[in-house]
């Protein structure tokens, strides 16, 4: 009998099984994403060819189309132009078109950044303050209030879309960054309060008491002693909030058109000649994926600890 491992440790067979299941799951999850990335590197023809091409000649046409506006011109006009100055002009001209200016994508993308990070910061900051209060103070009707906060997650947010639309129009918040930040913060806040309250509860109150005896006010103690110890929870909460506000589509379609339109409602509207420009859509989606991916990878260490935090008491 193999006595080199403990009873509690899984056998090598079950470890292999686990690895196989994870690999299958990973492949299933990654197929759509890799198809999307592949599409972004195809040209317009091979993107819609049938049967689908798995092997293809890579092209940056999608990315060029994503960032530019173009118009079709006659051959004579193209011949009268000076030779193209760079590779993307050449690429566009080979399709008998000229670049007429930058597209709206960068603007939409930076709207997404501002609204996504802004609302994440606001949700985590306000959530941490509220969670601390719920965790430490004798708030009247504490349990009812916590339940009430959570009740905002009990219906799909879009159910209140019409009242919010009317409200935002009256308040002048429609199609503004501030309006979208407020909206996403409101949706995320209940999750942030609940998640962070769990983390705050785990931090012994002796730390703040020690800081208060050391001469700090409660608010100073909160920032200098409690928040640094809640970093794990803050990271986990920030990721959840970020993913929601980054990906949110329905409200963005409804409430934003020009100034504050985020990337999700913009990307599917990229239209090429005679239909949707799939490589450009693929390119937009791929670029759209990157910030959340980077953000999550940076905070991944905290996230893993965060999800299992509190499961086992130290």
């Amino acid at each position, binding site marked *: 009998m193999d006595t080199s491992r403990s009873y509690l440790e899984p056998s090598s067979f079950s470890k292999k099984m686990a690895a196989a299941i994870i690999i299958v799951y990973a492949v299933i999850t990654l197929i759509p994403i890799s198809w999307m990335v592949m599409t972004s590197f195809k040209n317009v023809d091979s993107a819609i060819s049938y049967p689908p091409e798995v092997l293809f000649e890579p092209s940056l046409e999608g990315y060029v189309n994503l960032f530019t506006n173009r118009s079709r011109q006659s051959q004579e006009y193209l011949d009268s132009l000076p030779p193209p100055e760079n590779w993307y002009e050449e690429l566009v001209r080979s399709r008998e078109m000229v670049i007429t200016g930058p597209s709206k994508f960068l603007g939409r993308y930076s709207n997404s950044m501002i609204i996504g990070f802004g609302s994440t910061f606001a949700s985590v900051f306000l959530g941490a303050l509220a969670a601390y209060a719920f965790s430490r103070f004798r708030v009247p009707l504490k349990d009812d209030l916590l339940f009430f906060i959570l009740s905002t997650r009990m219906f799909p947010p879009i159910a209140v879309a019409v009242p919010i639309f009317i409200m935002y129009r009256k308040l002048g918040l429609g199609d503004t960054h501030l309006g979208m930040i407020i909206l996403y913060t409101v949706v995320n806040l209940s999750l942030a309060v609940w998640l962070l309250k769990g983390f705050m509860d785990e931090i012994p109150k002796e730390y703040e008491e*020690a800081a*208060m*005896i*050391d*001469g700090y006010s409660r608010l100073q103690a909160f920032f200098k002693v409690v928040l*640094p110890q809640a970093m794990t929870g803050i990271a986990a909460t920030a990721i959840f909030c970020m993913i929601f506000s980054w990906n949110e589509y329905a409200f963005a379609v409804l409430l934003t058109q020009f100034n504050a339109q985020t990337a999700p409602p913009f990307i599917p509207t990229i239209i090429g000649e005679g239909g949707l420009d799939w490589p450009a859509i693929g390119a937009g989606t791929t670029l759209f994926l990157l910030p959340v991916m980077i953000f999550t990878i940076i905070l991944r260490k905290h996230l893993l600890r965060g999800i299992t935090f509190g499961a086992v008491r130290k």
Partner: protein
Amino acid sequence: MSQIKIVNLQKSFGDFTAVKNSNLTINDKEFFVLLGPSGCGKTTTLRMIAGLELPTSGEIYLGDEEVGMLRASERDIAFVFQLFALYPHMNVRNNLSFPLKMQGYKKSDIKNRVEEAAKLLRIDHILNSNISSLSGGDRQRVALGRALVRRPKAFLMDEPLGTLDAEFRELMCLELKKLHLDIGATTVYVTHDQLEAMSLADRIAVMDGGEILQADEPNIIYNKPKTKFVASFIGSPGMNFFEVNEGISKDQSFVNIEGAKFDIPKQLEESKGSKNFFGIRPENLTLNNNEGLKGSVFGVEYLGSRKIITVKTSLGEIKVKTDISVNVKLNENVQVKPSNNNIIIFDGETDKSLNSEFIK
């Protein structure tokens, strides 16, 4: 450094009164221990002195200043927590300088003070370590360092040795005592461990049910307890109590119980009722074969230099601390007799000890 005085201090949490109308004066430079079982109000008292709880009524004086309603940060006291509460996201040096930074000292002053305190506690070699890498003893020292680096008016300690293992606790006890002699700071120390209290304290206050029962020097607490609870809480093994269904009159000098004669010190006070308790420490009893209370040996515990023999008698189990040369077998018939008249009589109605020549 300052005297601490609490006057008619009371603390209630809803219907529950944690501290009842307490009065205490802790002298300047004194090592004062609050001792009692869990839930007796000793920690609540300490937290009120610290400013972590506000009193329901009563006053707290730190020096001449009434501080009862001041915030903890305004009181200039230091507190050592049971779980140390060292800030885990800072290294040792930052933990020690944390209280000084708030008070606006210059960087060089902070550095000097931190290093001075570290040297005193022999933690100067770990100043740049992380808290999580420290042993329990070093954490304890850092916690003490954080308290003393500010040179506060008083030190408050809430069972600071409670989480250390037994061997280390003894060592830290000695170090604490020495530290106290070196810096001479007024210290209030909370514990439920009577040995710790006896070995550290200049004076001990024994608390039970939110009341301070007696505040005295350790030897007085041990030898002349004012109530039955104090007598039973101090000493290991605890004091023996026998119920005596007989009133005690003034000037009485002996009592017969179950055919055995017990000499008692000359009584200066008579009992209120006819039910009283005799309290005799195990070391004040001897075993023999011809006189005293009859019983049989129920258990023998060997403690190295001493033996504890438990004797079952008609008055209940009695513990006798004897020399190791005494040899008895289980179930052997023996007789128990006091070796002197250091018997304390507790009034059955009030649980208070009656005044006698021995305990005035």
